[in-house]
């Protein structure tokens, strides 16, 4: 764990306490069973907003606390531990686009609502099943956006879309004329919508430089990695607890050396993942070029998250395959997060390009 300030420690402890008491995995199970398109408990998100979480990266002038990305990452990690669903990460990423590239007017119009949790916001970039920000066709003409976006996180409930068009990022209100959404139900039962824009009014984010989209994607990658870190860490702990209690062949499973070594290797992998994720969050906070740190965070999260999600099922044996057990939730959500904002192969290639390999 990174060395934290007192404030960060308090925030993390608060998140840990809330998640354990108010949002254990059973809370996700209820949301999953309700099968609502929104894919999260609005009351729970309201509580998160009340605790200030939806404003952590919003400047104080707009109702946030500006505690920074490492702070937000700590909270997202805790939520990941119990596969808690919320639009917290999506809204923060969208908010960051406005913070980095918005006019004062645009900031005043949208940030306070995001900070208070009233507005769910989300970034809409990809137009197909694989992350490919270089291949965007959605375009704006005369202030009107035409195009469609695929698998938009929280797309079913978003009140604000930050849309990547051919010539930049645009703000589109969720209730604007010409916006239509269609649910896409993935294995993680979270909201991923096909969103079509047909002459919807679009307000350009003119600031932030030519690389505004890339900077925002870095933030999306790092927050996804933070959620994956929580999932991998808790997946490990849950598996370890199981191995210490399950008896076969007259022995507790944890006494078998092959399993001891497998868990030791996973322990090591998760610590490497943690270092990369925390460094990614810290890189955003310290300003400067975040590209490589964000790529490293997402790639390590993908690699280790992928492995841990498989091992969790395998090491639980047969019961790991039952819906009654939690392991399936981690597997099904992890794979979705692996694909979002860049899979391992494509991000490694991007890292190679940046380094001239």
């Amino acid at each position, binding site marked *: *764990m*990174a*060395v934290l300030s007192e404030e960060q420690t308090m925030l993390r402890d608060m998140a840990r306490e809330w998640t354990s008491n108010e949002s254990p995995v059973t809370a996700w199970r209820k949301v999953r069973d309700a099968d609502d398109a929104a894919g999260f408990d609005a009351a729970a998100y309201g509580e998160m907003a009340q605790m200030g979480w939806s404003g952590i990266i919003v400047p104080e002038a707009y109702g946030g606390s500006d505690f920074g990305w490492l702070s937000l990452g700590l909270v997202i990690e805790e939520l990941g531990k119990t596969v808690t669903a919320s639009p917290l990460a999506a809204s923060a990423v969208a908010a960051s686009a406005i913070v980095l590239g918005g006019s004062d007017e645009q900031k005043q119009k949208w940030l306070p609502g995001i900070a208070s949790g009233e507005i769910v916001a989300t970034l809409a970039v990809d137009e197909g099943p694989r992350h490919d920000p270089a291949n965007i066709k959605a375009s704006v003409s005369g202030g009107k956006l035409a195009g469609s976006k695929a698998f938009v996180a929280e797309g079913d409930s978003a009140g604000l879309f930050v849309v990547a068009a051919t010539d930049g990022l645009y703000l589109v209100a969720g209730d604007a004329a010409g916006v239509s959404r269609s649910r896409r139900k993935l294995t993680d039962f979270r909201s991923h919508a096909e969103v079509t824009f047909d002459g919807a009014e679009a307000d350009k984010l003119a600031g932030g430089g030519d690389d505004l989209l890339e900077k925002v994607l870095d933030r999306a990658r790092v927050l996804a990695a933070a959620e994956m870190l929580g999932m991998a860490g808790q997946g490990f702990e849950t598996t*370890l607890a199981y*191995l*210490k209690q399950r008896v076969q062949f007259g022995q*507790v499973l*944890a*006494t078998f*050396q092959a*399993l*001891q*070594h497998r*868990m*030791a*290797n996973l*322990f*090591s992998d998760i*610590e*490497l*993942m*943690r*270092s*990369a994720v*925390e*460094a990614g969050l810290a890189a955003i906070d310290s300003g400067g070029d975040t590209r490589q740190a964000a*790529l*490293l965070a997402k*790639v*390590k999260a993908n690699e280790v998250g992928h492995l841990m999600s498989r091992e969790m099922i395998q090491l639980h044996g047969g019961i790991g395959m039952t819906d009654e057990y939690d392991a399936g939730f981690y597997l099904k959500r992890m794979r979705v997060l692996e694909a979002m904002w860049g899979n391992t*192969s494509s991000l*490694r*290639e991007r*890292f*190679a*390009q940046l*380094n*001239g*390999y």
Partner: protein
Amino acid sequence: MATLAEPKTSADPLDDFRSEVRDWLAANFPASLKGKGNALASVEGPTSETPEMTAWRIAMGEKGWGTPTWPKEYGGGGLSKAQARVLSDEMARVGAWNPIGGMGVMMFGPTLLEYGSEEQKRQHMPGITMGEVRWCQGYSEPNAGSDLANLQTFAEDRGDHYVVNGQKTWTSGGQWADKCFCLVRTDKSDKHNGISFLLIDMDAPGVEVKPIKMISGMSPFCETFFTDVKVPKENLVGQEGQGWTIGKRLLQHERTNLSGGGSRLSTSGPSLADLAKKFVGEEDGRIADRDLRARITKWEMDWRAFQLTAMRVMAESKAVGGVSEVSSILKTVGTKLGQERQELIIEIEGLQGLGWEGEGFSEDELHQVRAWLFAKATTIYGGSTEVQNNIIAKRILGMLDHQ
């Protein structure tokens, strides 16, 4: 240089020390020795020193700055950690290197300071702090590697002395050492508590050293045979039966002093990508082989994550004033990545990377082959990867053998 009449004062007392160090280095470290640090000298000793190196070693030894934080009364520099860092920085600035090292410094000296008697400290510390006496480690045996406590070299009690019989293996620098700190068995009925820590003269009658030829072609280690070697009782460190405790403490010192090594992988010279472009070719300024490119990229990213982890461990350990449990993964991960890098180089260079000697190969290439071979030992020595995993599983994860 300060005079008696006008003592220098400054806002930071370290500034005064820094000037003192600079002045002393200017006066005692000849520019001709810059970058000529001979690591082997601390093992091989004075025989491979030039007269200039000898003078430098004596100067550092007399100042106690070869072992800067050790107590002055035993020949150390008596410096604080902060002062030692200043010394180290200033030395690096002028290309000066520490001529005093070896196992006496790295492991035995600190252990003796904790467990040795006054006489033993007075007898042995000066040789270490002056870099005059070379020590080797008598731990492993053919039947006691990972299971070190299984050691059988026996020290028979003969009243005022022991008679030692047995065999040690992997004795680093045994062929050049003056003395050996040795784990011997004094009680055959108790595996761990029957071990004692004994100091043996390598010149004593009955001690025979045979270098072991490694796959790298070099012989840095030896087998050491003890046949009826008489060792005075004065050479017992601590109590009889305390050897396992003292021996383990010594290994902790070794680990602490080697801990930087893992992340200090030699990445000097061309990068993997540069090497790949040279041997495999380029396509639009990028490595022409895409599969190789992806694997090199993976290595570079894993290496970066490892470096970040080493830094995090340091920061965490400092914050808690102890050792972060994450440090347990550093040797395993670092050595694995080190080996993978060596294997990538071999792969990239094809048969040019597998030269043994003679015509058609550069010095660097031949050196690289030795490095590749020797790197195979890194996951074995100092606690093999498998033993490290046992430790992580049992001590950190609490997965005990009997539950």
